């Protein structure tokens, strides 16, 4: 009797959310099957920002390809670059000078802070509160200014280079970072006041989008998404790189598995990042910031895999080299890709409004998924 596509069963409605939709944070396309307001199925359609980065990288040299990776997860562009640099260094067996190591970690954590701030604002916007977005951007702009001063750009800095970092820190860096931390410590309490403690917000988050720890592992979720389900998966702890083994910080774990748990993990991570930066900011060793490398980098034949913890989870770089100046095949294991695959599982049975909240707490960056 009902022959139109679009209505599968009686009373069900198939709605496209995205690719142009305010809550998909870019161009994710979700085909949502609804019964009334209740979600029966969510089917992500990807590829609306598939830029063939992996193919491109096959024709870029080891110095050049790093910059493309900042365009994947542009909110953790630094950390992505870091992962790539680590992988090249692993292949070339370059010893990174200690100063560069600390600078890298500092920048990573600042990036993580900026990313989480943006997430906080955007997620609050998704659930309908518009003002937090602006407060988040105020703090983010402070970080951007610091970044711009040292790296020369606001978002896609291209600051990492195989063997260290491209420039030395700006002389004002330490002072500004300290000022910022002092400022941000008060603001993060405001975040709690405005959003975390808000009853509407809590009710919108609690019990929504439950993901058990087994499912989280099975779906390959990482980062705050998995840690919200109690899965310990912080690469900074489990496979420490750079100076992460020397700083004190906690892996924030929540066992709720719902949106609120994921939210709390990210809020906790912001505080941890602050403490990491505070520990390191006064202890930047002197010396070189960039190891001496050959002008043209050639990785030996073989396979190299390195992973880092971005703001969204485990970012893996898998380089297969045939010994030339360009990678033979390169694969980026992006955290968002796996996290997204759990979306359908999490969203079933909830309302449309919850779908938005769940996506908000997954913190998807679509180019990171599509590559």
């Amino acid at each position, binding site marked *: 009797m009902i022959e139109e596509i679009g209505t599968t069963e009686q009373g069900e409605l198939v709605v496209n959310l995205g690719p142009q939709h305010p809550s998909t944070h870019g161009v994710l396309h979700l085909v949502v099957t609804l019964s009334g307001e209740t979600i029966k199925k969510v089917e992500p359609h990807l590829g609306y920002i598939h830029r063939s980065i*992996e193919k491109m990288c096959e024709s870029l040299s080891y110095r050049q390809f790093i910059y493309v990776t900042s365009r994947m997860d542009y909110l953790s562009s630094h950390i992505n670059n870091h992962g790539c640099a680590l992988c090249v260094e692993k292949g070339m067996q370059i010893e990174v000078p200690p100063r560069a190591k600390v600078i890298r970690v500092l920048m990573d954590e600042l990036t993580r802070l900026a990313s989480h701030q943006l997430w906080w604002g955007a997620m609050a916007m998704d659930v309908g509160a518009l003002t937090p977005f602006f407060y988040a951007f105020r703090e983010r702009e402070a970080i951007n200014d610091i970044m711009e001063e040292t790296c020369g750009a606001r978002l896609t800095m291209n600051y990492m280079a195989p063997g260290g970092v491209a420039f030395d820190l700006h002389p004002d860096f330490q002072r500004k970072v300290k000022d910022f931390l002092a400022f941000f410590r008060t603001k993060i309490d405001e975040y709690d006041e405005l959003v975390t403690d808000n009853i509407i917000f809590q009710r919108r988050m609690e019990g929504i989008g439950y993901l058990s720890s087994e499912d989280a592992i*099975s779906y390959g*979720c*990482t980062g705050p998404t998995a840690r919200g389900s109690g899965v310990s998966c912080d690469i900074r702890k489990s496979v420490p790189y750079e100076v992460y083994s020397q700083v004190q910080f906690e892996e924030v774990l929540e066992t709720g598995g719902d949106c609120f748990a994921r939210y709390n993990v990210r809020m906790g991570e912001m505080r941890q990042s602050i403490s990491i930066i505070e520990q390191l900011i006064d202890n930047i060793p002197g010396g070189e910031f960039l190891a001496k490398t050959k002008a043209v980098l050639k990785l030996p034949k073989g396979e190299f895999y390195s992973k880092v913890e971005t703001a969204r989870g*485990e970012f*893996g770089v*898998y380089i297969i080299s045939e010994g030339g100046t360009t990678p033979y095949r390169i*694969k980026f294991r992006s955290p968002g890709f796996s996290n997204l695959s759990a979306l359908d599982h999490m969203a079933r049975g909830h309302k449309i409004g919850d779908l938005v909240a769940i996506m908000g707490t997954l913190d998807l960056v679509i180019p990171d998924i599509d590559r």
Partner: protein
Amino acid sequence: MTKEELKISVTELLPSASFEEGSEWTTVLTGPDGWDSFARQVRSAPQLDFDYLFCVTAVDWKTHITVVYHLTSTVHRHTLVVKVKLDHDHPEVATVSGIWRTAEFHEREAYDLMGVVFTGHPDLRRLFLTDEWKGWPLRKDYEDPVNMIKL
């Protein structure tokens, strides 16, 4: 489990497997036959317990295609890399999406970009590209005179 111990347990499960040296993780080379049951066993065997598949990569070696699975156990914290060697023209391998849910998307990606067919996959369709796309862009012999401007 150390690398050596891992090797022993793997050989027990899959006698035909060979090992590749020189990388940081235990690397197993195998063909498409038996991969399915092997995967099931490494997932369920309590001393192995590879519950977390973190990366699936398809590589075009011009003569053949390998699919590389990176596995980790969140319990034992050991890592295993399995490379499944497939025919270049008709790459086919059993799906593991029933064992690790994350594989569903990763396999679709490999199918989309490399043309590897995962038999038994619940929903093997193009993932990133449009349905009417021709060819497997990540293969080395892929040519696209219209869209690809070579530098």
